[in-house]
């Protein structure tokens, strides 16, 4: 049977995984509701950031604080991790063994961790140039937006570790499959938010 409709956002498991596929329809819809409300939080933090751009209070501004090279590296890492998560979803859907799935997930996790590491290094360098959240309204808005995204990525990495644990205990059962699908949606969503961050915050600030 060819699926003529998508039952939910993200990859659809289809009739090879009937039980998980049925469970996913409502679970993923609920998660999608959360994702969309999260999107509103991020969008309003973007609006706050733009409004506070002028509020540097004599402190350092975008040109002194941002580094194009590390923003570019972070972008590449996150984009690559989105692709590798896609490969993991394909392995989940079409492979009978867990090998490929685990391999792609581990690569994704490492890319995510490298992203967090680079971001922490950025924050550290900024702090050494007097770019701390309490310095100005501009910096408060910057840290609220960018570190909230960083926290989301950290949360997603933790979630992946928890899923590894569940996989070890229960194997690839319906609960784990639906969990992986929702984590995939979160992961791709965080990459979409990052498009906004590198465009508005980093590139917009460095122009």
């Amino acid at each position, binding site marked *: 049977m060819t699926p003529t409709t998508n039952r939910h956002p993200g990859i659809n498991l289809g009739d090879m995984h009937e039980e998980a596929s049925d469970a996913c329809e409502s679970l993923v819809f609920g998660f999608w509701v959360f994702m969309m409300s999260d999107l*509103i939080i991020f969008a309003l933090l973007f609006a706050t950031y733009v409004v506070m751009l002028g509020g540097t209070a004599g402190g350092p501004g975008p040109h002194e604080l941002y580094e194009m090279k590390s923003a570019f590296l972070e*972008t590449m890492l996150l984009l690559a991790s989105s692709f590798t998560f*896609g490969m993991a979803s394909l392995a989940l*859907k079409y492979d009978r063994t867990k090998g490929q799935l685990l391999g792609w997930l581990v690569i994704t996790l490492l890319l995510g961790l490298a992203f967090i590491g680079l971001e922490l290094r950025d924050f550290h360098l900024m702090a050494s140039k007097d770019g701390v959240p309490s310095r100005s309204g501009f910096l408060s808005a910057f840290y609220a937006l960018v570190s909230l995204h960083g926290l989301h990525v950290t949360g997603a990495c933790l979630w992946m570790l928890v899923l590894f644990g569940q996989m070890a205990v229960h194997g690839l059962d319906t609960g784990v499959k639906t969990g992986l699908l929702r984590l995939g949606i979160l992961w*791709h969503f965080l990459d*979409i938010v990052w498009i906004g961050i590198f*465009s508005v915050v980093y590139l917009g600030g460095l122009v």
Partner: protein
Amino acid sequence: MTRHHLSAQQENERSSELRSYVVGYVLALILTLTPFALVAWSDLSNMKLWSVIGICALIQIVVHFRFFLHVSLAKQKREDLHLILFTTLILVIMVGGTLWIILNLYTRIMPSMLP
């Protein structure tokens, strides 16, 4: 690698989904590299650069929705689409409204705060 347990139909579906991820990744790369390269090396005016960055970002967001999140206007369940459209509506009202009101206030009483 051959997957013997897959029917021809499933094998087709698999390769079309794989193609979708690869196409999405390549498009996303192009749409990311263009604005980064322009900001790093070109001497376009600021206004032009901002427009290019904005347009590339909007297209890239659509690409991610379509190829990574598999959201498509034609095939999606109606509730999912309603949710996306409603969220977009809220975003436009709240973000647009915030920017309009606050920036308008800045030009009237606090010109120093204008970005």
